[in-house]
């Protein structure tokens, strides 16, 4: 029991190179210089800097927008520590024992919901799963009333998935619990972006300077938005691609390249991330048929060859085989799609742990 519950973090040396959390500044950090007119972006270090943060100061995780590189690195490093737990025979630590977490899923979800649930269980939290089909939502109860009733049972955290962008912000305004956004409308899906980043870092050792192509329905994708915020903050080079009918306006202002030529997007990519095409969108007139979509934007083995030889292929799921991605690519040697799912658990454990007030220091000890 004891040994099964103790976190083992020795030997988790990451790309940072013996990154024992410490207060020393990163080696290449500029000295606090004379007054500069604007905060200067730190020069790109060759590798991830040693984590300068040990704890997350936020009460909620509503999105990746606004999170700093240090905060993202902290979550990813913490996830590294937790990844080991899932490799044990007894996959459980007592970290969140006695805490109650509600998984409030107002939209269908397989991966995210199971992933959160497993993460919570491996942290020994008590979990309650709550979804519309089994709740008063079908009786027309408002989101606010539902949330207040959940709150009345004094949960510590609420993990929310909702079809309306901003629903987690709404909850954050009206609830005392920590709110974790598990996907809101077209807005953000921060833990997906974190698990994507974790997966990339495991494979490539870094995020800085990588060329990441994101292809698919950009308009309706919360995964896209969270990934752009995270990847740009971590210094990756992002190019996005989709039919112009599915590209939200002024997207390039987020600092990404925008193209509707998939070959151009994939060219020289270190990472190709495919986004799901929802067939409902076809009814909205965004493209004439899934067949034509596949012809123009589907990731085939031939197209994938334009990427770097060590490219990794990612997909947040659920996949439409033969629409946005060919099975030969999805199941091929460059695909890390199932690893993404595995890593999701560790990343969510890290997020839950840090939002509950945990620190990386405690883990390292």
């Amino acid at each position, binding site marked *: 029991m004891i040994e099964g519950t103790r976190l083992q973090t020795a030997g988790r040396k990451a790309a940072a190179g013996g990154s024992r959390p410490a207060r020393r500044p990163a080696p290449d950090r500029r000295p606090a210089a004379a007054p500069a007119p604007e905060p200067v972006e730190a020069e790109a270090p060759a590798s991830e800097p040693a984590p300068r943060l040990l704890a997350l100061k936020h009460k909620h995780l509503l999105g990746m927008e606004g999170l700093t590189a240090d905060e993202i690195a902290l979550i990813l490093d913490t996830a590294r520590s937790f990844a080991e737990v899932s490799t044990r025979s007894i996959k459980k630590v007592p970290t969140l024992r006695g805490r109650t977490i509600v998984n409030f899923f107002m939209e269908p979800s397989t991966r995210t919901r199971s992933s959160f649930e497993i993460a919570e269980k491996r942290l020994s939290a008590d979990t309650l799963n709550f979804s519309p089909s089994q709740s008063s939502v079908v009786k027309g109860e408002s*989101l606010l009333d539902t949330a207040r009733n959940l709150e009345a049972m004094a949960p510590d955290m609420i993990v929310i998935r909702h079809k309306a962008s*901003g629903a987690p912000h*709404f909850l954050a305004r009206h609830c005392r619990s920590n709110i974790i956004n598990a996907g809101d*409308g*077209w807005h953000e899906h921060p833990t997906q972006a974190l698990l994507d980043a974790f997966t990339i870092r495991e494979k490539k050792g870094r995020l800085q300077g990588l060329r990441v192509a994101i292809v698919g329905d950009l308009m309706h994708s919360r995964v896209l938005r969270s990934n752009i915020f995270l990847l740009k903050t971590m210094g990756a080079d992002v190019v996005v691609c989709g039919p112009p009918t599915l590209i939200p*306006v002024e997207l390039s202002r987020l600092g990404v390249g925008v193209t509707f030529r998939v070959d151009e997007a994939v060219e020289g990519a270190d990472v190709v991330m495919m986004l799901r095409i929802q067939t409902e969108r076809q009814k909205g007139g965004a493209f004439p048929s899934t067949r034509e979509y596949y012809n123009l934007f589907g990731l085939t083995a031939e197209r994938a060859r334009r990427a770097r030889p060590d490219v990794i292929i990612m997909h947040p799921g659920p996949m439409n085989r033969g629409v946005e991605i060919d099975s030969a690519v999805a199941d091929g040697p460059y695909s890390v799609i199932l690893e993404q799912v595995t890593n999701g658990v560790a990343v969510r454990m890290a997020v839950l742990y840090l939002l509950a007030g945990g620190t990386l220091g405690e883990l390292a000890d």
Partner: protein
Amino acid sequence: MIDPATKTDAVMDLLIVDGRVAERRAPEKGRGAAPAGGRVLEATGHWVCPGLVDMHVHLREPGQEHKESIESGTRAAAAGGFTSVACMPNTDPWNDGLSVTEYIVAEARRRGVVNVFPIGCVSKGGLGAELAEIGDMVRSGAVAVSDDGRPVGNSYLLRMALEYAKIFGIPLIDHCEDRNLSASGVMHEGFVSTVLGLKGIPAASEEVAVATDLAVAAMSGGRLHVAHLSTRGSLEKIRRARADGVAVTCEATPHHLVLTDQSVADSHYDPNMKMNPPLRSEEDRQALLQGLRDGTIDAIASDHAPHHADEKLVEFDEAPFGIIGLETTVPLVLDRCVRKEGLAPARFVELLAQNPARILGINKGTLAVGADADVTIIDPDLGRTVDVSQFKSKARNSPFHGWRLRGWPVATVVAGRVVHELLPVATR
């Protein structure tokens, strides 16, 4: 006294007898000598303006009294410095005929505290198919026609309505929007909607409809009034059409003059930042301010749209469009447009009294001798904080709660009767 209709901007005494302006004179020694039984409002240092006219409000009665009623809405108007309001026909049932128009007029007489001018439907049931009985409604007191939130999307019907309205000399007020382009958008389409993941309503959805309406108005010769104009492109089209002699007027709302789409992000999806047309870009807002100065915009109207608190306490996507404005319009315009943008006080009165009265063809908007004694007294230096809990309106859906604003109405007089006093300006 500021009364652009009579080119007046001077310190004056105003004598009101039997609900009308009886006399205006330069103050003399021994002023304040009101006729026996009269009352003096001491307004030294304040602006004495013709009663303000809000030409675009929703009083929700009949049918939606949980949101607002004629009584509560007119109390809100009085508190906000308005002596007249024109109410849109999207009641339940819609004001598309004599019976509803007569009900509104009668209820306003019974319980209203300011003048209420009904706006009738263009089409039966506001359905955009057949002309409503406009003549009947005008006979009962309607001063304009509009299908309110529903654009008159059928250009043929629009032509018929504009031509038919010429019989009565009333304007057709259109909510210009191409619903196909708006689709199910909930905020202005731009960088902010992209980041927030909310479906956008492009500027073009308004501009397409404005262009269509202007072309039809040019042909039909009727009087077109564009409601709550919100984009730079719409304004340019109006400017050009007017130069070509098209009889078109337009209004802007205070929220489009003060807020932008960025407010949706800054407020973290506050449903009180959701209205239609949506809060536009900063560039659009600047263009509107320019339109106020150069005269392209004729009127400022609140588009007072009360909703029950429960209706707005939902996800942004689910919330109904609209915010209330009767009790914040005057201070917002005074603080943000007059004080911060240098809009002239006389222009303020034109935008909020003289022009809306002229557009609606009602005998208001001036303090000329013989005019109805509707007066709004404004203290341009009074600083107060907006507190929705003090509103006379039944609704609380305002994004301006907690805003500190300078310049407030301190007395509202309708036909010689004081219906609202914020400060004890009265002596004796």
